[in-house]
């Protein structure tokens, strides 16, 4: 009698725990994700959506909101400085991405062999990346001060001088690009080193037996097999050029977008509209365009890397 009751109870108990085990896993899952999900929602998701909302309002920094419909977007369409910003952003990216690719890959090939000498060299190439961009901007500004900065005097001595690195609208953006390359190339060198390591050595050995020279080996083995890495580098450096805090910091500290808006990339122009002139709605309208663009890039990224896996299968 007792045994029947006991088995019944045990069965009931077992049934309940089996069912609740599943639910327990559900609840545990939700609770574990909760802090991050909530934080990302409040400090990333909501801002992304709010950007779109703000863009149809006229907002002043003190909290006055009035609905204006598409007015901010119309203003954007008719704002020559917005188009200038878009052009400068595109130029910055067009110069930065290939330069970073070449410098990153070049340095990686240069220090590819693993020995103590190369380890030291890698660290030296990477060292700029450890310094904050505010300091980077200050140091470079100092070196290109008109007439007396060490680089200004060097270019003058080589007779390619006569221009002002940061004061001349034709050179300011190029100067910013070069400083950005100096700061970022060590990082991309590391990414490329990771990619190079994953290329099986046998390929090179086989090619050497077939009599392929260094250039042929680079062209027919290294480059094709580096495709995933190259894709990652191009994608990430492009996004960094268009929307990265790194571009903002360098430009904001070195030129504030000047001279004559020659370095006024969109993110700097947006910032100035918002926090310089209090045009929050207008700034949000411009930022919305960037948010949408970034979401599209992420979607492409996700699709092409099969769920964001950047490893080198195939």
């Amino acid at each position, binding site marked *: 009698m007792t045994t029947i009751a006991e088995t019944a109870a045990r069965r009931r108990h077992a049934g309940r725990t089996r069912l609740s085990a599943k639910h327990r*896993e*559900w609840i*545990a899952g*939700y609770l*574990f*994700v909760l802090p*991050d*999900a909530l934080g990302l929602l409040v*400090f*990333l*998701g*909501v801002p*992304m959506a*709010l*950007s779109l909302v703000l863009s149809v309002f006229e907002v002043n920094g003190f909290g006055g909101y009035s609905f204006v419909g598409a007015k901010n977007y119309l203003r954007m369409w008719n704002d020559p400085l917005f188009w200038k910003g878009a052009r400068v952003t595109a130029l910055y990216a067009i110069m930065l991405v290939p330069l970073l690719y070449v410098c990153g890959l070049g340095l990686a090939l*240069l220090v590819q062999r693993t020995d103590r*000498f190369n380890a030291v060299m890698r*660290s*030296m*190439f*990477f*060292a700029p990346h*450890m*310094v*904050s961009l*505010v*300091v980077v901007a*200050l*140091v470079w500004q*100092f*070196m290109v001060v008109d007439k007396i*900065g060490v680089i200004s005097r060097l270019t003058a001595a080589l007779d390619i001088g006569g221009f002002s690195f940061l004061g001349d609208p034709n050179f300011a953006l190029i100067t910013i690009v070069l400083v950005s390359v100096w700061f970022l190339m060590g*990082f991309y060198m590391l990414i490329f080193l*990771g990619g190079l390591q994953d290329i099986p050595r046998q390929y090179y050995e086989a090619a*050497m*037996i077939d009599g392929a020279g260094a250039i042929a080996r680079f062209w027919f083995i290294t480059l094709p097999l580096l495709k995933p*890495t190259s894709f*990652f580098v191009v994608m*990430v450096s492009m*996004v960094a050029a268009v*929307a*990265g*805090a790194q*571009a*903002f*910091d360098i430009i904001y*500290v070195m030129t504030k977008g000047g001279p004559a808006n020659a370095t006024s990339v969109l*993110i700097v122009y*947006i910032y100035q509209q*918002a*926090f310089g002139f209090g045009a*929050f709605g207008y700034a*949000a309208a411009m*930022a919305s365009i960037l*948010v949408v663009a*970034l979401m599209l*890039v*992420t979607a492409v990224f*996700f699709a092409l890397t099969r769920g964001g896996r*950047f490893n080198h299968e195939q």
Partner: protein
Amino acid sequence: MSSKRPQPYFSRSQVTLVRGLWMVVTAILAVMTLFPLLWMVSIAFKPPAESFSSNLIPQAPTLDNFIHVLTGVPFIRYMVNSFLVSATVTIVALFFHTMAGYALARLRFPGREVLFLSIFSTFLVSLPVIIVPLFVIVKAMGMLNSYVGLIIPAIFNAFGIFLLRQYYLSLPKEIEEAARIDGAGYWRIYWSVILPLSRPIMSALAILFFLANWNSFLWPLTITSDPNLWVVQLGIANFKSQYSASWNYMMAASTIVAIPTLILFVIFQRQIMDSLKTSGLK
């Protein structure tokens, strides 16, 4: 027999020569890369009259610039602020991200894939793009000009969660099963099985998070106006507007700001470079 072996293109001495040249070129490029930083330190030790001389080694090295900077501007306070903010963000972020990464990789619950996709969709959204609405939200929460405002929004990013999830996906199933048979709950498994196993990736992420926050400029610039809350990057940016012509002071201040991360780099070079190398791709 030997005729079947591929003939080397160069003799041994030629190989040594090429390698030697290669090393010289590498070394020259490396020194050129470091030059701006060496120049910064050099000016920091030069008296004002020597600021624009072209010698790298100061003729009359002096500590006056450093003394002036450290007594004139509360850099120590800025550094303490930076340290507090960076350390707190790092610890809290690692805690939350490991929890989320564990659940997203190893627990099964409805909506998990959707949740992961939503998190991943914020992967490339950067601070400058959302700074206006973020400012509006943080202001509405009353967090302007506070440590809380400096810390909390900096904690959340998809990158850390993504990397940890990838790492946890690669752990073998048996580890958890053993713990579960011993009657451990999910929290117990997370705390005493998963966390100890994630030590390598956690130290890599800790370095990355700490550096990113130590060097961050835009967010503190936007939400703090109270000098008592300034982090070191704001301190130096503001120093620039005060002393825009006194390059010897500015380079001393820059050196002070750059030294902690450079020292960190010298000590943890391998870990930092390895963590960055793998974080990019794997």
